[in-house]
C-alpha cells in the first residue's frame, strides 16, 4: 500500500468514526453548561482537576444516552471580577442555562448577576457559610462550613480540648469559615487563644505559626486553601508545634498530602468522605479520573463530577429552562452520587454526612460520627 492509499484509508476510517459518533448522538437532547474555575495562576491544579471531572461526566452522559452536554470553560484565576466577565461571556455568547463554578468569593459575586440574568449557578466547592440561602438561582452542591465547623468544634471539645488557635486564609472563604468555627467552639465551651491569617497563595507561614506556638494552644485548627493547608502542617511541625492539628474537607486533597509529607500523619478533622469502594459509581469515576489526571480525585473533583451529572440529568428531564432545572435538582431524593446519596435542603444547599478522619501513613482513615 503506497502512502496515498494509506492516507485515504485513514481519512475514510476517521470520517466513518465521526459519522458513527454523530449518528450515536442523534436523538439526544443537547444542554449547554458553562464552567468557571481557576485554570491558570496559582490554583490552576484545582481547576484542571475539575476539568478532568467535567469531561468524564460529559462522556458518561453521552455514552448512557442521557444528554449531549456542551461544556464551555472560563478561567477565573481565583478572582471574582474575572468570574463575572466569564459569566457574561457564557450567557451572551454561549447562551448557557447553568454555570458550574467554585470558590466562595466567586459564588458571592455571581449570585446577584445570576438573579438578574436568570441563570442557575451550581456551586460545587465554595464552602463559606455566607453562601447559604443567597438566592434561588444559586445551588450549593458543596457542604458549607457551618456543617463541618460545628461538627469539628463539638468533636474537639468532646475530646477534652479547651483552648485552640486558628490559622486561616485571608479571603472571603477563610474569614467566614474561621469566624463560624470560633463561634461554634466558644459555644461548645472552648476558648480561642489566637487567630492568625495568611494571604492567598502563601508559601511561608512560619511567622503566623510562631505566634500561634507562642500562644501555646491545646490544638491548632487549619482553615486554609490547597496546598496552603499542607504547608501549614509541614511548617507547624518544623517549628516545633506539637499540639494536635485539626482541619476540614480541604485537607483531603492529594496536593496537601504531597507537600506535607509525613508531617500530615496525625492530622484530624471532619470531612465529606469519598470512598471509591463504597459504590460502583465512585469506583468507576476514581479509575477514570486516575487514568486522565494521573492522580486520585479529590473531594472537590468528585463534587464537580456529581454536579455535572446531576445538571445533565436535570436538563434531560426538564429541558434548558434554568428555573425548572433548579426545581428538579433541589427536589432529588437520595440521588446516587459518587460522594454518596445526595439531597438538598429547602434553601438549595446539599445535605451530606460528615465523617471524622485521621491521617495514618499519609492516608485519611475515616470513622463515622
Amino acid at each position, binding site marked *: 500500500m503506497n502512502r496515498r492509499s494509506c492516507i485515504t484509508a485513514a481519512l475514510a476510517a476517521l470520517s466513518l468514526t465521526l459519522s458513527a459518533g454523530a449518528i450515536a448522538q442523534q436523538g439526544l437532547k443537547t444542554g449547554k453548561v458553562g464552567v468557571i474555575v481557576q485554570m*491558570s*495562576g*496559582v490554583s*490552576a*491544579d484545582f*481547576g*484542571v482537576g475539575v476539568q478532568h471531572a467535567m469531561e468524564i461526566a460529559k462522556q458518561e452522559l453521552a455514552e448512557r444516552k442521557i444528554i449531549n452536554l456542551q461544556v464551555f470553560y472560563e478561567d477565573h484565576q481565583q478572582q471574582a471580577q474575572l468570574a463575572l466577565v466569564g459569566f457574561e461571556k457564557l450567557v451572551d455568547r454561549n447562551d448557557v442555562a447553568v454555570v458550574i463554578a467554585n470558590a466562595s468569593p466567586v459564588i458571592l459575586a455571581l449570585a446577584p448577576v445570576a438573579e438578574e440574568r436568570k441563570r442557575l449557578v451550581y456551586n460545587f466547592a465554595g464552602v463559606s457559610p455566607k453562601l447559604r440561602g443567597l438566592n434561588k438561582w444559586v445551588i450549593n452542591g458543596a457542604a458549607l462550613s457551618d456543617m463541618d465547623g460545628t461538627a469539628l468544634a463539638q468533636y474537639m471539645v468532646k475530646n477534652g480540648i479547651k483552648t485552640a488557635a486558628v490559622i486561616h486564609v*485571608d479571603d472571603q472563604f477563610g474569614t467566614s469559615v474561621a469566624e463560624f468555627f470560633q463561634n461554634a467552639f466558644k459555644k461548645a465551651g472552648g476558648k480561642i487563644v489566637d487567630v*492568625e*491569617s*495568611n*494571604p492567598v*497563595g502563601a*508559601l*511561608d507561614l*512560619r*511567622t*503566623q505559626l*510562631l*505566634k500561634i*506556638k*507562642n500562644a501555646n494552644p491545646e490544638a491548632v485548627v487549619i482553615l486554609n486553601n490547597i*496546598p496552603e493547608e499542607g*504547608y501549614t502542617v509541614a511548617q507547624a511541625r*518544623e*517549628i*516545633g508545634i506539637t499540639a494536635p492539628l485539626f482541619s476540614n474537607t480541604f485537607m483531603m486533597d492529594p*496536593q496537601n498530602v*504531597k*507537600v506535607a*509529607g509525613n508531617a500530615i500523619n496525625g492530622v484530624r478533622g471532619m470531612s465529606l468522605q469519598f470512598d471509591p469502594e463504597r459504590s460502583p459509581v465512585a469506583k468507576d469515576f476514581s479509575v477514570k479520573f486516575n487514568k486522565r489526571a*494521573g*492522580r486520585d480525585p479529590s473531594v472537590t473533583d468528585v463534587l464537580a463530577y456529581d454536579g455535572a451529572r446531576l445538571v445533565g440529568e436535570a436538563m434531560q428531564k426538564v429541558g434548558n429552562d434554568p428555573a425548572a432545572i433548579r426545581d428538579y435538582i433541589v427536589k432529588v431524593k437520595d440521588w446516587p452520587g459518587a460522594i454518596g446519596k445526595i439531597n438538598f435542603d429547602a434553601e438549595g444547599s446539599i445535605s451530606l454526612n460528615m465523617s471524622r478522619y485521621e491521617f495514618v501513613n499519609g492516608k485519611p482513615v475515616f470513622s463515622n460520627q
Partner: protein
Amino acid sequence: MNLFLELLVAGGVAGAKVGIAALGFALIFYTTREMHFAFGAVSVAAAYPCYWVVRALGDGPAATMLGVGAAFAAAVIFSIAIHKYVYLRLRSVLPVVMASLGISLIVENVIQIIAGPDIQVLSYPALINIVEMGPIRLRVLEIGVFIGFVIVAVSIDLFLNHTRLGQGLGATMDDPEMAELVGVRTSRMRMGAYAAGAALGALSGVVMLVDTGLKPANGFPLLLYALIITIMGRGSMRSVAVWSILFGVIRSLWSWEFSPDLQELAVFALMVSYLIARDAWDRYQFNRIRPVSRPTGSGAARAGT
C-alpha cells in the same frame, strides 16, 4: 524574647531564599538595564528538568547533581536566547517590558501543558531533618540555603571588586558607554550577566522544588520579591544582599507586635519611604551650594599668565 529570636531567624532565612533570586535578577538588570520580567517564569521552568532527571535516574547524589546541572543549563541557554533574539532586537525599554511579560506568560502556560498544574516536590529526608539551637528549630535545607546565600553574595562581591573580569562587569553596570570606550566588551558582559543571573534563578527554582514544591505559577512571586529588592538595591549588589535579608527580617518582625495581615503593607511602606528619603538626600547633596575652593600656589600663577 524567644518569639523575637525565632521571628528574627525565620525572617533571615526567608530573606536568604528570596535573596538568591534577587541577586540573579539584579545582576541582569544592573548590567543590561533590561526589565527581564520573564525571570521568575524561566527560573521555575528551569527547575523542571531537574525534577525530571531526578525522577528518571533516582535521587542519588550523582542524579541530583545531573539534575541541578540540567536546570542551570536550561536557564542559561534559554535566558541568553531571550536576550539575544528578542530583547536586543527590540532595543527600547517598553517593548522589552511587554515582550518579557509575554514570554513569562507563554513559559508558564507551556510548562503547565507539559508538566501539568500539580505541585511537584523532590523529597530528601536528610534535608528536612530538624536542627535545634536553643529555641530555634531549622531544617538542614534552610541552614544550607542561608549559607549558600552568604557564599553567593560574598563571591559576587569579591568577583566584582577583585577580578579583572568582574571590574569589567562593574564598569558595564556603572557606565556602559565609557566601559566600551576603554575596551570592555560590554556585549559579552551582558551575556555573562544573563548566564550568571539565570543560574542563580535556576538555583532558586531548585530550592523551591525541594522546599515547598514547584508549580508553573510560582514564578510570579519569585519575580515580584526579586524586583522589589533590586529596586531597593539602587545599583549596588552589596545593597541587594543586605536588603534581601532586611526584607525577610522586617516582614517577620512586624508580626512580633502587630498583625501579620499587614506585614506586606508595612514592608512596602517602609521601602517606599526609604526610596523617597534616599532620593531626596541625593538631590540635596547634588544641589547644595558648596564653598568655592580658592586656587592656590602655582595654579593661580599659571592662570594669571
